[in-house]
C-alpha cells in the first residue's frame, strides 16, 4: 500500500465546518461540579461496597462473625455487597467519566443541569433504598436484580433522565462526529434499559414484594440474559468508553487503531447478548440455548481483546511514562485484567470446563478479577487523573497513589489466586470418584471445610485492596483541601454545527493489482466510510445499536418461550401449598439462593450426591426460579424428605450443633418470629394471576396454611422436639424444604432404576398463556 493513497482515503469527506461562516463562534462552560459530585460518591461507595464484601468474606471463614444479627447474615449482606459494588461504585464511576468526557467530546455543556442533578440524587437515593431494603429481607430473589419493584421503577425513571441528558448533549454537540467512547456510552444506555425492564417484569404482591412474571427455566433464561449482559453493558462497554477517553488522554498518544475500534465495538454489541445461557450449562435450560451461549462466548474472545489491544497499543511510545505515572499504571493493569478475564470467561463457558467450575469459587475468582482489576483499576486511574483537574490543584501525593496501586495489585492477586485454588479444589473434590465408582468425598461438608484456609487468604487479599482504597481516600481529601477558594470556569468557544450537506464519498479502492470488481467493492466497504457517516448521525447509530441487541435477544428469547418441547411438563408436579409458598418467600427473603443451588446437573458425581438430576418441568411454578449459581452449602433441589423436621429445626437454630464444620449462619430468629399468615392469601392470588393453577386454595389459603403448620409442629414434637412452633416462620420454611424435589416421585416411576425417566406427559408451553 502506498503512503499517499492511505492519506487520501483517510481524509474526512464531510467539509461543512470549513466553510467561511465558521467565523460565528459560540461560547460555553463545562459543568464540572456534577463530575465532582459523582466522583465523591464513587469514592464513598467503593468503601462501602468493599467493606461489605470483606464482612461477607469473613463470615464464610468464621460464621460467628455475623453475630447472629439477621441484617448482616450472609444471605442478606451478599446481595448488598454485589449491588453496592456494581450499581453504586461502578455506576457512579461510569457517570463520573461520562459526565466529564461527554461534554468535552461534544464540545457542549450537559444538556440540562437539572437533569444532571436529578440523575445524581435519584441514583444515590436508589442506592440508599437498596441499603435499607436488602438487609431487611426485601428482595425479588434474582441475582444482581434483587431490588424490589418500586426501586426497579425508580431505576428505570432515573435511567431515562440520564439517557435524555446524554442524548440531549449529543444533539446540541459542536463536534461533527461521535468519538468511539460515545458509541460505547450509547450501547450502555440503550441496552441496560432493555435488560433492566424485561428481566424485572413482575407482579406486585405488596408494597415491597413481587413475583417475577417468568417461572423456572424461562425465568432462569431471562435472568442470565440480564445477568450476563449486566456484566457486558454495565461493567464492560461503559468502561471501554472510559478507557478510550482517559487512556489516550493520560498517555498523550493517539488511539492505536480506528478500524479495530469499529470492528470490536460492533462484534461486542452483537455477540455479548447471546452469551447469557453459558450460566446455565447442564441445567434444565434447553441444551440448544446453552450451546449458543457457549459458542458466542468463545467468539467473544477476540472482540473483547480488540478493546484490550487498542488500550495497550495506545501506549506504544509512552511506555516509559508507565514507570512513573500512577494513572497509567492503574490503566495498564486494569486493561490487562480485562484481557485476562475475557480470556477466562470464554474458557469457563466451554461446557466441559464449566462442569468443573460452575457453582465453585472459580466463578468468584473470575468476577473479582474483572471487578477489582478492570472496573476498580480503571476507576482509580480515572480518579487520579481527574482529581488535579477537577480540584484545580496538584495531586497531594504521587507516592501515596503508587502505594495504592501496589496494595491494590497485591490484594487482587492474593484474592484471585486463593479463589482459583479454592474453586478448582472444591470442583475436583465434588467430582472425585474412585475406581469402584464411589464418591471420594461423600460428605459435602468435607469439601467446604477444606476451603476455610483459602477463605482467610481471600479475606486478606480483600483487606489489602481496601487498604489501598483507604490510602486513596486520604490522598483525595488532602488534594481537595488545597483546592482554590473558587473554581475557575474556563470559557470555551467553538462554531455550531451546520447541517451536513456533503455525503461521504466512496473512497477509492486501495488494491493496485488487477482483481475482479467485487474485490474493489469489498475494499471500499472495508474502509468504513459508511461508518464514518453513522458517527455523525447519532439517531441512526443508536437505532443500529438497538437493532443489534434486540435481534440478538429475540433469536434466543422467542424459541425459549414459544417452543413447547423446551419445558416438558410433569403430571405429578403441582403448585406449592400456601404454607410452602410462605416458606419459599422466607427462603428468598433470607437469600438462601446465595449459597444453595436448586439444580442437580446430569453428572454422575452430582446425582450420586444429591439424587436424580433436575428436570425443567419441576420448576414450572417457581416465580422466580431459585436454581442458584453457587454451592457454598449443598444443593437443595431434592432436599424434601432427606432430613426430619426436627433436624431442620435444630439446624436452623444452630447449624454447628448438628454439623460442627458447617459455615451456615444460625437462623435463630426464624424460630422466634411469627409468620404473617394473613398475607398468604394475597400472595396465592398473585400466583394464580401468573398462571399457577391454584383453585381450592383461593379464599382459604390462611386456614390451609395454619392446618399444615399445626401438623408439622405436631410431627416435630413426635420426633422429640419442643412444642410451640405452630405459627413460627421456621415451620413454613421447613414445609417448603420438605417439598423440594419430591413431586417427581409422586406418580410411581419405573421401579428399580433410579435414572429411569419420570412420568413425563406431552409437552405444553407455559408462562405465556
Amino acid at each position, binding site marked *: 500500500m502506498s503512503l499517499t493513497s492511505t492519506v487520501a482515503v483517510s481524509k474526512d469527506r464531510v467539509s461543512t465546518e470549513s466553510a467561511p461562516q465558521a467565523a460565528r463562534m459560540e461560547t460555553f462552560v463545562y459543568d464540572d461540579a456534577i463530575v465532582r459530585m459523582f466522583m465523591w460518591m464513587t469514592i464513598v461507595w467503593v468503601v462501602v461496597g468493599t467493606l461489605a464484601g470483606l464482612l461477607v468474606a469473613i463470615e464464610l471463614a468464621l460464621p460467628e462473625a455475623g453475630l447472629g444479627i439477621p441484617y448482616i447474615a450472609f444471605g442478606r449482606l451478599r446481595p448488598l455487597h454485589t449491588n453496592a459494588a456494581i450499581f453504586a461504585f461502578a455506576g457512579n464511576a461510569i457517570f463520573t467519566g461520562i459526565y466529564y468526557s461527554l461534554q468535552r467530546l461534544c464540545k457542549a455543556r450537559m444538556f440540562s443541569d437539572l437533569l444532571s442533578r436529578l440523575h445524581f440524587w435519584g441514583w444515590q437515593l436508589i442506592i440508599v433504598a437498596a441499603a435499607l431494603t436488602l438487609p431487611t429481607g426485601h428482595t425479588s430473589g434474582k441475582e444482581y436484580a434483587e431490588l424490589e419493584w418500586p426501586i426497579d421503577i425508580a431505576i428505570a425513571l432515573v435511567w431515562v433522565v440520564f439517557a435524555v441528558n446524554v442524548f440531549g448533549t449529543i444533539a446540541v454537540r459542536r463536534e461533527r462526529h461521535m468519538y468511539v467512547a460515545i458509541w460505547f456510552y450509547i450501547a450502555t444506555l440503550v441496552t441496560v434499559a432493555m435488560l433492566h425492564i424485561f428481566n424485572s417484569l413482575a407482579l406486585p404482591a405488596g408494597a415491597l414484594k413481587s413475583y417475577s412474571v417468568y417461572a423456572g427455566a424461562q425465568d432462569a433464561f431471562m435472568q442470565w440474559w440480564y445477568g450476563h449482559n449486566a456484566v457486558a453493558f454495565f461493567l464492560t462497554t461503559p468502561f471501554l468508553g472510559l478507557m478510550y477517553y482517559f487512556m489516550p488522554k493520560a498517555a498523550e498518544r493517539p*488511539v492505536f487503531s480506528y478500524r479495530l475500534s469499529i470492528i470490536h465495538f460492533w462484534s461486542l454489541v452483537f455477540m455479548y447478548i447471546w452469551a447469557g445461557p453459558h450460566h446455565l450449562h447442564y441445567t434444565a435450560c434447553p441444551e440448544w440455548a446453552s450451546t449458543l451461549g457457549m459458542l458466542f462466548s468463545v*467468539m467473544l*474472545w477476540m472482540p473483547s481483546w480488540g478493546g484490550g489491544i487498542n488500550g495497550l497499543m495506545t501506549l506504544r511510545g509512552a511506555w516509559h511514562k508507565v514507570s512513573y505515572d500512577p494513572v497509567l499504571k492503574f490503566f495498564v493493569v486494569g486493561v490487562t485484567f480485562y484481557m485476562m478475564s475475557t480470556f477466562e470467561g470464554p474458557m469457563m463457558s466451554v461446557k466441559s470446563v464449566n462442569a468443573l467450575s460452575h457453582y465453585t469459587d472459580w466463578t468468584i475468582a473470575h468476577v473479582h478479577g474483572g471487578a477489582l482489576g478492570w472496573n476498580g483499576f480503571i476507576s482509580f486511574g480515572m480518579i487520579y487523573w481527574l482529581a488535579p483537574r477537577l480540584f484545580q490543584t496538584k495531586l497531594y501525593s504521587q507516592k501515596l497513589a503508587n502505594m495504592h496501586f501496589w496494595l491494590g495489585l497485591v490484594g487482587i492477586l492474593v484474592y484471585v489466586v486463593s479463589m482459583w485454588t479454592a474453586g478448582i479444589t472444591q470442583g475436583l473434590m465434588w467430582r472425585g470418584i474412585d475406581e469402584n465408582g464411589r464418591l471420594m468425598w461423600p460428605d459435602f461438608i468435607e469439601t467446604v471445610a477444606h476451603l476455610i484456609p483459602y477463605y482467610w487468604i481471600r479475606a486478606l487479599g480483600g483487606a489489602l485492596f481496601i487498604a489501598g482504597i483507604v490510602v486513596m481516600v486520604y490522598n483525595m481529601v488532602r488534594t481537595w483541601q488545597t483546592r482554590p477558594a473558587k473554581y475557575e470556569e474556563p470559557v470555551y468557544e467553538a462554531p455550531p454545527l451546520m447541517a451536513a450537506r456533503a455525503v461521504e464519498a466512496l473512497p477509492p479502492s486501495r488494491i493496485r493489482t488487477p482483481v475482479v470488481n467485487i474485490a474493489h467493492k469489498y475494499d471500499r466497504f472495508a474502509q468504513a466510510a459508511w461508518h464514518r457517516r453513522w458517527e455523525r448521525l447519532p439517531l441512526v447509530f443508536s437505532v443500529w445499536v438497538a437493532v443489534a441487541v434486540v435481534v440478538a435477544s429475540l433469536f434466543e428469547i422467542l424459541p425459549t418461550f414459544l417452543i413447547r418441547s423446551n419445558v416438558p411438563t410433569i403430571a405429578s408436579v403441582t403448585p406449592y401449598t400456601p404454607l410452602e409458598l410462605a416458606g419459599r418467600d422466607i427462603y428468598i427473603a433470607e437469600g438462601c439462593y446465595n449459597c444453595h443451588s436448586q439444580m442437580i446437573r446430569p453428572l454422575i458425581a452430582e446425582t450420586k450426591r444429591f439424587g436424580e438430576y433436575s428436570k425443567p418441568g419441576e420448576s414450572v411454578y417457581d416465580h422466580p426460579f431459585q436454581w442458584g449459581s453457587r454451592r457454598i452449602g449443598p444443593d437443595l433441589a431434592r432436599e424434601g424428605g432427606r*432430613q*426430619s423436621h426436627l433436624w431442620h429445626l435444630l439446624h436452623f437454630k444452630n447449624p454447628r450443633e448438628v454439623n460442627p464444620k458447617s459455615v451456615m449462619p444460625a437462623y435463630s430468629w426464624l424460630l422466634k418470629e411469627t409468620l404473617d399468615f394473613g398475607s398468604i392469601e394475597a400472595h396465592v392470588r398473585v400466583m394464580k394471576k401468573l398462571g399457577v393453577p391454584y383453585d381450592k386454595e383461593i379464599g382459604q389459603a390462611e386456614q390451609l396454611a395454619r392446618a399444615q403448620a399445626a401438623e408439622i409442629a405436631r410431627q416435630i414434637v413426635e420426633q422429640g422436639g419442643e412444642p410451640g412452633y405452630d405459627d413460627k416462620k421456621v415451620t413454613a420454611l421447613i414445609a417448603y424444604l420438605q417439598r423440594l424435589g419430591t413431586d417427581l416421585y409422586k406418580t410411581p416411576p419405573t421401579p428399580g432404576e433410579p435414572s429411569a425417566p419420570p412420568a413425563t406427559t406431552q409437552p405444553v408451553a407455559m408462562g405465556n398463556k
Partner: protein
Amino acid sequence: MSQSAEPMLLDHNYDGIQEYDNPTPGWWWMLFHATVVFSIVYFLFFQFSPDSWTLKDAYNASVVVDLRKQFAEIGELKADEATIVKYSTDKKWLEVGRNTFATNCVSCHGRDGEGVVGPNMTDDAYKNVKTITDIATVITNGAANGAMPAWKNRLHPNEVVLTASYIASLRGKNLPSARPVEGDVIPPWPKGN
C-alpha cells in the same frame, strides 16, 4: 501488508485525542475467524448430526459405567438376612455401605454412627429394628413419623443392602454419644456361614 515505521494518523481530533489508521493485527483476525468457524462446525454437528450426543446421553452412559464399576461383581442384591449378614463382614463391600452412609446419613447419625439428631447405632439398643433385615426396611421406608426419611427413591437397592450391612457392622463399637440409650436391647445379629 507493509508496516511503515510511523503509522498514519487520521484527521480525527476529539478533545485532543487522535486516532491512528493502523490495520487490525493479523493474528487477531485469524483467531477471530477460527472461533467463528469452530462455532459453526460445533453448532451444526451437535444440533443436526446423527453421530452427535446430548449431555443427557453422556450422563446415561456414565450411569451404566458407574453401576458396572460398583456392582458388576455382585449383581442385584436381595435385602434378606443372609445377604446383609454376609456383607457386614466383607471389607471391600462395606466400603460402599460406608460411602453411602457418609453421603446421606452422617448429618443425623454422626460421622461414625454415634448419633446426633438420630440414634446412636454403635450400641446394642435399637428403636425400630428387631432383626437385621429391619435395618434395610427402615432405610427403604423411613421410620418414626418421618424423623427417619425414606430412601427408596434415592438409593440403588444394592446401596440399601450394603448400607444396612455397614450399619449392622457398627454394632458393638459403643462409641460415646450425645444421645441417650434409645429403644430396646435386641438379640445379637445372626452369624454368617
